[in-house]
C-alpha cells in the first residue's frame, strides 16, 4: 500500500519545553475547564508544571489518569488543584454525563481522522477488493444462509458418495480377512469354537469393527470441513449464523457452542459457560444436543445407504436440517415461555483473509478428529461391545448355557423386549432396534455396533475352503486398490454424473439385508418410513452419557433432567409423527 503524506503548514505542537506546533481544539466547554485546571496547576503546583506540559497534564487529569492523580495528591499544592479539578469535572458531568474521557478521546480521534483525510492518499488494494466482493455475497444476510446450506449439502454429498467405496472396503476386510484370521489364530492356540471365539468375533470384531467401518466416512467429512475452515469460509459461515441466531432472540455468543455441537456435544455444552447471562446459557445448553454430532453420522449413513441408496446424501442433509429446525422451534418456544427476557447483542468479527488450504493444516485437522473417533472406538465402544456380548451370552430362559444360548433366550433380548413395544407406533418396535437405542445412550456409535452384533451373520459360514494369511493379505491390497479407483470414480457423483455400471444389490452386505428385513417386518412393509423415523429418533434423543455429565455440570441437575425427559419425549413424538403421517400420505 502506497501512502503519500502532504503536511499542511505547521501549527502549534505541544511539548514540555518548545512552542506547540499542533494543538487539538476541544469543545468550548472542555477548553474552558482545561484552562481552569491548567491555571490551577501553574499557580498552585509549579513543580508539576515544570515536570509536565501543563495543558497535557490538565487533560490527563480530566480523563482520570490514576497514576497522575496519585502524583498530584502527593505534590505540593496538590489539594488545591484537586479541588479545582473536582469543580471542573462536576460542571462537565452536567453536560456530558460520566463520559468525559470518551468525549476527550473522541475529539482527538476526530482531529486525527480529519487530518488523515486531508493529507493521506492510498493506492487501492486489489486483493482486498476481491475479498470484499466475495464477503458481500457470502455474508449477505439473505443470500448468505442459502449459500451456507448449499455448502453443507455439498459436504454431505461428498461424505456419502465419495466415502462409500472405502466404507465397503473396510466392511469387507473386517468381516472377511480379520474375522477369518482371528478364528484361525484361535484354533492354533486351541481356543477355537468356544466362548473366546464368540467374544472376539461376535463381540469385539462385530462391535468395534462395525463402528470402524465408518472411519472413511468421518475422514471424508472432516476433510471437506478442513478445507472450508482453512480457506477462511467457516468464519463467514459463523458470521451468517450469528445473524440468524439474533433473529431467534439468542445471544450472539450462543452460536459458538451450537457450531461446536456439530462436532461433539460435550465441549459444546462446556462452551456455554462463556455466556454470562444465565438464561442465555441454559437456553443454549438445552439446544446444543439438537446439533447432530459426528457420532450420529454413522447411523444416518448406514440407514440412508440401506433404505435411500440413490438419495443418501440428501436424506442425511435433511436430517441435519431437521435438527436445526427443531432447535429453532424449541428456542422460539422457550423464549416465549421459560426464558422470556434477554436480548441478542451485536457481534463484531474480524474475517481472516481467504487463502488456499494447506495440506499440512488439512491433514492435522482430519487426523486429530479421526483419531478421536478411533480412540473412542477402542475404549468406550470396545467396553460396550463386550457388555452387549455378555448380555447376549447370558441365558435367561431355555436350555442354553453361557455363550451357547439362543439369542432369543438371552438377557439382552429380554431387556430389549421391555423397550420395544414403546416404539411400535414408530414402525421399529422390534427388540433389535429398541436394544440398539438403549445402548446408544452410552455413545451414539454403539447403536451401530449393537446392530452389527444383534444382526451379525457370520460371513465365514459361507466359506468352504480355508484362506491362507498370504491370500488374505493379497486380498487386502487388491481390494484397497479397487476401492481407491472406485473412490475416484465417485467424485463426479457429487454433481450427478454416475460412472458406475448399475450393479444395485451387489453392495448390500448381510448386515444391511438383515436390518432392511427387520424394519420391513416391524413396520408392516413400510421399512423406509420406519428407517426415517428411526433416524429422527436418533437425532433427537439424549446424545450420550458424557453429554449428560456435561449438562449436569454446566446447567445443574434440574435442567439436565428437563433436557433428558424433553429430548426423549420429543424424539418419541416426532418419530411417531414421521411414521404415522407418512403412512397417511402413502409414503414409504
Amino acid at each position, binding site marked *: 500500500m502506497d501512502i503519500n503524506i502532504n503536511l499542511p503548514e505547521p501549527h502549534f505542537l505541544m511539548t514540555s519545553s518548545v512552542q506547540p506546533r499542533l494543538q487539538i481544539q476541544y469543545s468550548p466547554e472542555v477548553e474552558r475547564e482545561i484552562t481552569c485546571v491548567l491555571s490551577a496547576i501553574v499557580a498552585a503546583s509549579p513543580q508539576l508544571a515544570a515536570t509536565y506540559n501543563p495543558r497535557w497534564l490538565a487533560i490527563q487529569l480530566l480523563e482520570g489518569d490514576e497514576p497522575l492523580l496519585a502524583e498530584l495528591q502527593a505534590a505540593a499544592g496538590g489539594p488545591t488543584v484537586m479541588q479545582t479539578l473536582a469543580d471542573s469535572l462536576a460542571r462537565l458531568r452536567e453536560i456530558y454525563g460520566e463520559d468525559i474521557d*470518551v468525549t476527550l*478521546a*473522541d475529539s482527538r*480521534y*476526530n482531529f*486525527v*481522522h480529519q487530518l*488523515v*483525510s486531508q493529507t493521506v492518499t492510498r493506492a487501492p488494494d486489489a486483493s*482486498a477488493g476481491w475479498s*470484499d466482493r466475495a*464477503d458481500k455475497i457470502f*455474508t449477505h*444476510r439473505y443470500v448468505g444462509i442459502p449459500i451456507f446450506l448449499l455448502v453443507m449439502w455439498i459436504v454431505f454429498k461428498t461424505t456419502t458418495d465419495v466415502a462409500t467405496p472405502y466404507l465397503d472396503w473396510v466392511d469387507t476386510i473386517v468381516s472377511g480377512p480379520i474375522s477369518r484370521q482371528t478364528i484361525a489364530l484361535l484354533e492354533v492356540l486351541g481356543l477355537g469354537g468356544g466362548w473366546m471365539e464368540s467374544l472376539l468375533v461376535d463381540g469385539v470384531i462385530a462391535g468395534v469393527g462395525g463402528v470402524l467401518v465408518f472411519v472413511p466416512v468421518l475422514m471424508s467429512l472432516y476433510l471437506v470441513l478442513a478445507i472450508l*475452515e482453512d480457506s477462511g469460509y*467457516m*468464519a463467514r459461515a*459463523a*458470521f451468517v449464523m*450469528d*445473524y440468524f441466531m*439474533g433473529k431467534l432472540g439468542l445471544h*450472539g*455468543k450462543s452460536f*459458538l*457452542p451450537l*457450531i*461446536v455441537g456439530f*462436532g*461433539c456435544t*460435550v*465441549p*459444546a455444552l*462446556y*462452551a456455554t*459457560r*462463556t455466556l454470562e*447471562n444465565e438464561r442465555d446459557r441454559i437456553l443454549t445448553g438445552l439446544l446444543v444436543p439438537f446439533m447432530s454430532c*459426528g457420532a450420529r453420522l454413522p447411523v444416518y449413513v448406514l440407514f440412508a445407504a440401506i433404505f435411500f441408496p440413490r438419495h443418501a446424501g440428501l436424506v442425511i442433509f435433511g436430517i441435519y436440517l431437521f435438527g436445526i429446525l427443531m432447535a429453532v422451534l424449541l428456542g422460539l418456544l422457550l423464549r416465549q415461555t421459560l426464558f422470556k*427476557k434477554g436480548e441478542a*447483542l*451485536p*457481534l*463484531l*468479527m*474480524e*474475517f*481472516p483473509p481467504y487463502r488456499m488450504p494447506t495440506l499440512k493444516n488439512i491433514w492435522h485437522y482430519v487426523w*486429530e*478428529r479421526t*483419531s*478421536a473417533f478411533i*480412540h*473412542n472406538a477402542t*475404549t*468406550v465402544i470396545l467396553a460396550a461391545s463386550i457388555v452387549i456380548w455378555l448380555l447376549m451370552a447370558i441365558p435367561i430362559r431355555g436350555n442354553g448355557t453361557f455363550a451357547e444360548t439362543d439369542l432369543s433366550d438371552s438377557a439382552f433380548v429380554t431387556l430389549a423386549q421391555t423397550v420395544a413395544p414403546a416404539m411400535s407406533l414408530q414402525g421399529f418396535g422390534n427388540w433389535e432396534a429398541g436394544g440398539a437405542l438403549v445402548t446408544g445412550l452410552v455413545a451414539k456409535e454403539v447403536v451401530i455396533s449393537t446392530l452389527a452384533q444383534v444382526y451379525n451373520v457370520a460371513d465365514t459360514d459361507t466359506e468352504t475352503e480355508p484362506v491362507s494369511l498370504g491370500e488374505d493379505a493379497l486380498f487386502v491390497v487388491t481390494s484397497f486398490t479397487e476401492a481407491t479407483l472406485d473412490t475416484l470414480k465417485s467424485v463426479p457423483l457429487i454433481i450427478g454424473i454416475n460412472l458406475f455400471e448399475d450393479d444395485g444389490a451387489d453392495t448390500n452386505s448381510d448386515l444391511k439385508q438383515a436390518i432392511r428385513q427387520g424394519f420391513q417386518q416391524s413396520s408392516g412393509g413400510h421399512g423406509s418410513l420406519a428407517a426415517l423415523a428411526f433416524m429422527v429418533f436418533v437425532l433427537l434423543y439424549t446424545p450420550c452419557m*458424557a453429554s449428560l*455429565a*456435561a449438562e449436569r455440570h454446566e446447567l445443574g441437575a434440574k435442567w439436565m433432567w428437563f433436557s433428558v425427559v424433553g429430548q426423549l419425549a420429543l424424539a418419541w413424538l416426532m418419530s411417531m409423527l414421521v411414521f404415522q403421517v407418512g403412512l397417511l400420505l402413502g409414503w414409504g
Partner: protein
Amino acid sequence: MLKQVLYEIESAQGPVNLDALGRKLNIDRSALDGMIQFWVRKGRLQIQDQPQAETAAVCGGACRINCAGPQSCPFVMHLPLTYYLNPAPDEGEE
C-alpha cells in the same frame, strides 16, 4: 468518531464485520482497532478469541479423549478475533 463507532455497532441489525465497518466510516483499520480497544477498556466491548478452547480444556477430557490443553480438543472450532457488545451500564438487568 469514537461514539460513532459504538453507535454503528449498537444499531447494527446483526453481526458486524470489522473491515466493512471501517469502510463505512472511512476509517483506517488500524485506527478502528484502536477505537475498538478503547471500548474494550471501557467495558462496552468484550473480546473473545479462544473462550471455547479454554472451556473445552476445563472439561478434562470428559469426551474420553486425552486432553492436553486448550488447543488439543479436536472438536473446537477456532474462530478469528471476535468482540461482543456489553449492555450499557444504565441498561443493567432487572
